[in-house]
């Protein structure tokens, strides 16, 4: 299970890569692995306001449809248009080409509610036991 060091994580298996006042968000390797082959992703719209832990996207796989929650509050400034035609990118590369959206962060303090890589790895490994 891949868990890059420079990201922050939620207990619902989303990640955030924080760069200045923006964050790129997506779902973790653990999440894509449990979902199975992803077939459709409903992304947020540019300009849309997201709340921390609020609904931000829906992912459909051959097994189920699951909600994705935003790791931080903010406004959507960019979405990964590639995913519309190539949802499999999330399976292949959850942290790179399978990113979901970039948001402009409202409140950087919210970061405190997220896990760092070490904590998340422990958390996810416990779940797979």
């Amino acid at each position, binding site marked *: 299970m891949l868990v890059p060091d420079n990201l922050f994580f939620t207990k619902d298996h989303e990640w955030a890569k924080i760069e200045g006042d923006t964050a790129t968000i997506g779902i973790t390797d653990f999440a894509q692995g*449990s979902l199975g*082959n992803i*077939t*459709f992703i409903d992304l947020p719209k540019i300009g849309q306001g997201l709340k921390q832990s609020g609904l931000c996207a829906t992912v*459909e796989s*051959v*097994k*189920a449809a699951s909600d994705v929650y935003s790791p931080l509050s903010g406004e959507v400034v960019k979405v990964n248009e590639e995913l519309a035609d190539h*949802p*499999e990118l999330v399976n292949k590369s959850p942290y790179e080409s399978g990113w979901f959206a970039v948001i402009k962060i409202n409140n950087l303090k919210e970061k405190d509610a997220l896990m760092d890589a070490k904590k998340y790895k422990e958390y996810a490994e416990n779940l797979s036991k």
Partner: protein
Amino acid sequence: MQLIFEKSRSGRLGFRLPESDVYVFESLPQKYCRKEEARLPEVSELDVVRHFSGLSRLNFSVDTNFYPLGSCTMKYNPKFMEKAASLEGFSLLHPLIPQLSGGGILAQGSLEVLYHMDKLLSEITGMAAFTMQPLAGAHGELTGVMLISAYHKANGSLKKHIIIPDSSHGTNPASAAIAGYDVIVIPTDKEGYLDVQAYKKALSKDTAAVMLTCPDTLGLFNPKIKEIADLAHSAGALMYYDGANLNAIMGKCRPGDIGFDVVHLNLHKTFGTPHGGGGPGAGPVGVSSKLVDFLPISRVMRRDDNTYFLDYQNKKTIGYVAPFYGNFLVILKAYAYILALGKEGLIEVSENAVLSANYCLSRLKDYFEVAFDKICMHECVLSASRQVKYGVHALDISKYLIDKGFHPPTIYFPLIIKEAMMIEPTETESKETLDKFIEVMIEAAKLSKKNPQALNLAPEIMPIKRLDETKAAREPDLRWKP
């Protein structure tokens, strides 16, 4: 396998129309004319008969095979019900008749069926009254949530959300959302029940209702259900009972006695009517006395002289939720089912459904992980997680079962159980059938160690082998194109 379009040959006909001997209106206005040809298949009558006979032989149904699809209650549909529904007095009656002046007298039999069905379902579930209108279970759910909303509005309290457990049927949050409520999801505790602490925290004056299935989708009856209902009521919320799992409890306990205010029933589950290709279903909704005034119109009532009529007087009604009286002939079949089995028969239905599920569970639990190792109700949830290390998943075991002549159990549901396989054998299967199924499941468990590939490649002997489900979902190809 050829599609009927591929069997088409230009100019081949299945019929011959006689020469027209009346005036033909030649110039249909252009706007009514189609722009391109209809491109219907050109085949003979025999082509059509062979094509569809062939397809029907490929059909997998309760009439041909064991069908332990969890949560769906795929019991055998007794044929006498079809006979009842084909009686001409019922099947040829025009639905407008009882609404015409003086027409009621010509529809007394059908009205009586609806009236009695209301009483019978009320008796079975402990509710005050039922509407027969909803055309399916999910439609019943939406009707039920609309009734809850109407009740709160009439009492001047606009509520915001509905509480639903994470093990719920997907239709529950969908119905709540469509009716305009937010959904709060409550996790399941280590014992497999609704986490009461999290539930208490979520419950507030903004809670419109708590939607539960009991027994739940894990096949467990929640021993704290009464406490959960009392807590909801003291917060001013109503209790909604998803009747999809009623087959486990008939004659043993009644949702109304526990404190549920709204119940929907899937007649095509518990009461043996067919699950016919997505319809027609029937999802009657029952309510406690405080919600009766909001029921859809019309309602069938009885006069003092024992005649029946359609009543439109419910002033607070939410209105019609479907044309006329619901899927009347489906209701009629379920009515016949209830009368044929009687009270004792329905109790035995539930007892045998629970016995069958526990038999499967106890014989299979050495071979598969069990979601919760305790006595289950009418269905049991196993997991293929022990087989994953050999590269075998619930999906592979399901495909293997198809080759062996069994419909797979429900897989990957409930969502909270990894590699879930949800088995609902129902009461209508013999011990011999259950034994055969169990042996094939055990065989699959053993094969997953010895020869996982045999499972990964299944099905081998079906007309279509393993489908690429991902490609099918990513690039749906649903229509024949020339």
